[in-house]
C-alpha cells in the first residue's frame, strides 16, 4: 500500500467535564506527508495523545476536519471508524496491551481475524510480521514469558500485520530501558524507511525524538515548533 497523506484542518477538541469545558486542541492545522516519521513532543496534558487518537480514528474532533488518505474521519460514524481502523491504522501504546492468554503468534494474528483470509495466509503474514520484529523464534510464547521489549515488539508486529497506511505510536518506549528503547526506535525507523509506513509518534524522550524526520512541539493544544531533521538517526537492521 502506498503511503498516504494526513491532513488536519482547524481541528478543535473540547472535553466536557461536568459543566466545565476543557479545550484540548484549538484550531490545529497539521499536514503530514505520506512516508514521513513525525515525532510529537510537549508537556503532559498538552493534547498529544488526543491528537493521535484523532488521527487514528479512535476519537472524533469537536469541529474541523481530519483526513487520512481518502478518508474523512470527521464524517464517519463510530461503526465506520471501527472498520476503517482495522484496515488503515496500526496502534502501538506505551502499555503493550497484549492478550495474556494468547501466544505471541495468536496476539499478532488478532487483527487478521477481521479480514476474509485463509488460515494459511494469516499464518504467513503472522510469521512475516514476527520476523520483521525479530521474534520468529518466540511465536509460541505467552506475554508473561517475554520481556517488556519483546512484548512491545509483539505489539509492533500486531500493528503492522495488516499492512496499515499509518502507524500511530503513543510513548512506545515509555516503559523500556535505554538499550531496549533504542532497539524499538530502530525498528520503527526501519518500518518507516524500508516499508514506507507513515509514522506519528508521541514521546517525552528527546533521544527518541531524534529517530524521527520531523519534530513537532505541542503546547496547550497549539503547535509551537515544527522542525525537520536533515539527519535523522539512521535505522540499523535489528
Amino acid at each position, binding site marked *: 500500500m502506498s503511503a498516504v497523506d494526513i491532513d488536519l484542518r482547524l481541528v478543535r477538541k473540547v472535553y466536557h467535564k461536568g459543566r466545565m469545558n476543557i479545550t484540548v486542541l484549538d484550531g490545529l492545522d497539521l499536514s503530514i506527508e505520506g512516508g514521513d516519521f513525525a515525532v510529537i513532543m510537549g508537556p503532559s496534558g498538552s493534547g498529544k495523545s488526543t491528537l493521535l487518537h484523532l488521527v487514528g480514528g479512535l476519537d472524533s474532533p469537536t469541529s474541523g476536519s481530519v483526513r487520512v488518505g481518502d478518508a474523512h474521519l470527521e464524517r464517519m460514524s463510530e461503526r465506520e471508524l*471501527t*472498520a476503517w481502523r*482495522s484496515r488503515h491504522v496500526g496502534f502501538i501504546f506505551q*502499555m503493550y496491551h497484549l492478550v495474556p492468554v494468547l501466544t505471541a503468534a*495468536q496476539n499478532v494474528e*488478532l487483527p487478521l*481475524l477481521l479480514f476474509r483470509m485463509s488460515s494459511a495466509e494469516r499464518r504467513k503474514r503472522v510469521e512475516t510480521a514476527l520476523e520483521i520484529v525479530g521474534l520468529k523464534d518466540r511465536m509460541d510464547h505467552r506475554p508473561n514469558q517475554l520481556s517488556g521489549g519483546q512484548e512491545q515488539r509483539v505489539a509492533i508486529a500486531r500493528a503492522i500485520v495488516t499492512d496499515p497506511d499509518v502507524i500511530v505510536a503513543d510513548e512506545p518506549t515509555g516503559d523500556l530501558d535505554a538499550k531496549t528503547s533504542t532497539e524499538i526506535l530502530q525498528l520503527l525507523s526501519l518500518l518507516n524507511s524500508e516499508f514506507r509506513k507513515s509514522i506519528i509518534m508521541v514521546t517525552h524522550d528527546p533521544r527518541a525524538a531524534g529517530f524521527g524526520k520531523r519534530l513537532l512541539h505541542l503546547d496547550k493544544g497549539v503547535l509551537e515548533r515544527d522542525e525537520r531533521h536533515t539527519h535523522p538517526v539512521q535505522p540499523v537492521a535489528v
Partner: protein
Amino acid sequence: MPLPLSYTWRNLLARRLSSGLTFLVVAVVVFVLSVLLSFAAGMQASLKAANSPVNIVVLKAGASAESTSIIWDDEVTPLAQTPGVATNESGGQLLSRELSVQAPVPRRTDLSRKANVPVRGVDDIAFGVHPEVRITEGRSFVQGQMEAIVGRAARGRFANLEIGDQIALGRQVNRLFRIVGVFEANGSALESEIWAPRTVLTDSYRRTFASSVHLRLSAPSAMPAALDYVNGPSVQLRGKREGEYYEDLNKKTREIVYLASILIGIMSVGAAFAVANTMYAAVDARRREIAMLRTIGFARRSVISIFMIESVLLTAIACAAGLTCAAYLGGMKQDYLSDKTWTVFAFELKMTPQILAICFAVATTVGVIGAVAPAGRAARTRILDALRKA
C-alpha cells in the same frame, strides 16, 4: 472469524474459582433437571395404565401404592361379601390377594449394576382377575413350586430372565426360582414385573401379609355399589377403580414433577445470576483487553459475542458434566427409590434425546441470559478511558 477457542477456554481457566463455582451451579441445575425429566419419562413409560372398568385395587387405608400397603389375612375376609364380584367357570370369586416385593436383578446394559424389579406373588385366580395377562412363551408356574414367569418388558430390560434361568427371590440365598414362562399384559405396568406363586413367595420373603387385593366385577355398572361397600364401615381397607389407582400414582408423579420444575426454575434464575456474576468479573478484569480489541477494529457485536461464547461454553460444559453425573448416578437413584412408593414398577431413569436437548437448551439459555448484561457492559466500554494508564 471468531477468536480461537483456546482464547475462550484459557480465559475461563484464568478465573478458575469464579468459573468453577458457576460451573458447579449450572451442573447441579442440569443434574437435577435431567434426573427429574428422566424420572418423569420412566414413570410415564411404566404407567401405561392398566385401566379395566371392572377392576378394583384394594390397599391399606393411607397407602398410595401396593409396595407400601400391608393387608392382614383377616382384613381380606370381609371383601368376599363385596357385591357384584364376578366368578369364573368353576365358581371361584375373582378376588386376588397379591404380594408386592422386589428383587435385585442385573441390567442387560450393564451386568454389574442391579436394579430392583418388582415381583408379584399371585394365586391362580389372578389370571382371572387380570385377563389381559397372557402367557406368550413357555407355561405358567405351578402353585407350590419354585417357579416364576416374567413380563415381556422386564425380560427385555434385565439380564438372566430367560426361560430356564434361575433367579433368587427372597431373603434366603438358596431360594432359587426357575423361570418357566413369559407373559404380556397389553403393554401395561404388569409387564415390568416378575410373577411367582404367592404362598411360595410369602414364605421366601417371610411375609405374613398381602400387599393388595384385586377384585374383578361382573359389569362396570356394579362399580359404585362395590366401591361403596369396600370403602364402607365393614371393610377397613380402601378400594379404587384400577384406572383411578394408576391415575393417582401418575398424579403424584406430575405433582412431584410440577413442584420440582418450580424449584428448577428458581435454580435456573440463580444459575443465571451466577453466570452474570462471573461474566461481570471477566468483563471488569479485561477492560483494557476489550479496549485494545476495539482499537484494532473489533466491533461492539464482536465484543458481545466474545463474552456470550465464553459464557455459553462454560454452561455447555457444565451441562455435559451434569448430564454425565445424572447418567452415572441414574442407577443408584433408582435403587434408592426402590424402597419407596414409586418403585412398584420397573421404571428406569430414561435418558431420551429430548431430555438431552432440553438440558442443553436450558443450560444455553442460562448462559445467554446470564451474559447479556455483562456483555452489554463490555460492548459499551469507552475505549480511551479504558486504555488510559490505571
